[in-house]
């Protein structure tokens, strides 16, 4: 689309056609009292040069911290071709076009993406993406209630090992549709779910679904087979929340469960950001979702299918649209009206460039780096690993003192040291969540360890200040 601004002549011609004196007149219907004259704290217009200068200075003030925070958004190396290709004119749009079939290239890309998600998750059908991992989980919960024919329940088991932000978003979206959430506790010793605890918390009337995050919010690997079997035996669907990079190392959710009950997870969703999307202050990211063919009509969002044209040549088309809102109105499977096409484009290119072997090397490197980090940090007196459970690329560390001042001291030393779990999981004590991906070299881990030792042994000004305030 060319960039063509309106000239004053264009504007006055258009106004005269509709019989309006000015552009402001078009907004006459809005009562004066509702119009904001000026925004508090926001200056009036400045030149592009001034704004660029101001924002560059503000960004520089943030510094470039060495990042050891994960908790749902992960810093990975993104090969240069990913965004060089994704930002080409042919791809550079967040939307699937109107009259989608006219854009066969875009549809093919989405089809390839769906196929990759199916291959990673071991599922039969994937949609064209959702907004992000958290809203994907909310949609998965609503979908599970629609899809679970064996249960009338509108309750979902959302354990405390699920990312607390995801749990909050799912509640926000689903609670007004009569969905209730229960949050079973985890085993404090292992940092994962225990079947015995789940059994004990069973309410009469049952649940529509059990959410299993793998690896869980603490980075630990859940006992997915036993959990899946237990959920299915109790007429629940299994919603798997997975890190797509980890799937290069671990069994896909489609194969969860013992052989006897081994039907796998029913719905798989997660955050696609680790696949070639930069951290970028929290977004835009994209969510992915996949399911079995038997539940495909309950899956929200767009789906691209492969077909043949009247001459038998292969082509791509939007399919299963009858469940969507432009046809089913209020009874549509969801109110999702767009997807994160550009991010999906980047992820598809990322996966194509890495291939299965490359993704496995990234995942293995992440796991190895995190073990190095945990070993280096737990050698420091007053720092211990909270759990001794197999994990992927995150770990909970427990300190002998409050976490916030330590993180502040680390930040002063150029290190983003981790996520304080005090607010979300106070039961863990002075705990923080740390992460190392393939981007962290030995010297980075050493720098973190030195800074942490330093911060613990010699309280900084920031720490003193924080303690004073507390």
């Amino acid at each position: 689309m060319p960039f063509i601004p309106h000239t004053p002549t264009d504007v006055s011609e258009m106004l005269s056609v509709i019989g309006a004196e000015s552009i402001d007149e078009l907004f006459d219907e809005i009562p004066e009292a509702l119009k904001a004259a000026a925004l508090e704290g926001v200056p009036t217009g400045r030149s592009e040069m001034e704004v660029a200068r101001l924002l560059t200075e503000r960004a520089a003030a943030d510094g470039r911290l060495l990042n050891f925070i994960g908790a749902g958004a992960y810093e990975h190396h993104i090969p240069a071709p990913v965004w060089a290709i994704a930002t080409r004119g042919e791809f550079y749009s967040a939307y699937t076009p109107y009259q989608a079939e006219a854009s066969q290239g875009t549809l093919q890309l989405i089809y390839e993406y769906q196929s990759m998600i199916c291959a990673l998750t071991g599922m039969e059908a994937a949609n064209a993406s959702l907004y992000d991992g958290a809203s994907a989980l909310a949609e998965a919960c609503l979908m599970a209630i629609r899809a679970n024919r064996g249960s009338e329940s509108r309750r979902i088991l959302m354990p405390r090992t699920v990312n607390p932000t995801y749990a909050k978003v799912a509640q926000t979206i689903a609670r007004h549709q009569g969905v209730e959430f229960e949050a079973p506790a985890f085993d404090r010793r292992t940092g994962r779910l225990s079947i015995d605890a789940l059994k004990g918390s069973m309410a009469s009337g049952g649940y529509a679904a059990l959410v299993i995050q793998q690896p869980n919010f603490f980075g630990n690997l859940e006992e997915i087979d036993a959990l899946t079997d237990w959920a299915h035996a109790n007429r629940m669907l299994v919603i798997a929340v997975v890190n797509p990079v980890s799937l290069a190392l671990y069994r896909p959710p489609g194969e969860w469960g013992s052989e006897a009950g081994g039907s796998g997870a029913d719905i798989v969703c997660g955050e696609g950001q680790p696949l070639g999307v930069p951290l970028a202050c929290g977004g835009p990211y994209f969510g992915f979702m996949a399911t079995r063919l038997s539940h495909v009509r309950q899956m929200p969002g767009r789906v691209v299918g492969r077909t043949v044209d009247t001459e038998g040549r292969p082509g791509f088309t939007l399919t299963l649209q009858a469940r969507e809102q432009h046809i089913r109105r209020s009874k549509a499977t969801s109110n999702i009206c767009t997807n994160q096409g550009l991010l999906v484009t980047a992820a598809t290119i990322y996966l194509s460039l890495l291939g299965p072997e490359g993704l496995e090397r990234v995942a293995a490197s992440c796991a190895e780096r995190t073990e190095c980090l945990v070993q280096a940090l737990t050698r420091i007196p007053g720092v211990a690993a909270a759990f001794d459970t197999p994990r992927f690329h995150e770990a909970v560390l427990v300190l002998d003192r409050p976490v916030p001042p330590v993180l502040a001291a680390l930040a002063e030393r150029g290190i983003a040291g981790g996520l304080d779990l005090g607010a979300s999981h106070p039961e863990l004590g002075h705990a923080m969540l740390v992460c190392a991906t393939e981007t962290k070299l030995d010297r980075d881990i050493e720098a973190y360890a030195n800074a942490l030792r330093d911060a613990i042994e010699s309280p900084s000004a920031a720490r003193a200040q924080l303690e004073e305030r507390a």
Partner: protein
Amino acid sequence: MSENVPDDLQYTRTHEWIRDLGNGQVEIGITDHAQQALGDLVFVEVPQVGRELKAGEACAVVESVKAASDVYSPVSGSVAARNDALSDKPELLNSDPYGQGWLMRVARGSAPADGPFLKATEYAQFVKEAG
């Protein structure tokens, strides 16, 4: 194609037909008019046997390439049988809406108080006026 409205059935304004099976059960489907309006059906979802239905409740979904519609139970009762053949062959509903395309059978309670329904002539008239 003219629309077939058999005389021996009863009808609703939401285009379901009802056949009294004489054993306390009724058979329910959608009319020839409804299947023609929907076009080629690609998916039919019928309720589980044993499900308790209230008259007017959405209990089945018929989906064509261009639309998806709810089917409303004309009667209250419990689902006694459902037409599982439709899951593999939804086109039966297009080819034989009053026969092989039936959706479900419902066992009505002891005092069936639903209705009144439309007679064939009334339904034909209703469709004509609405169209």
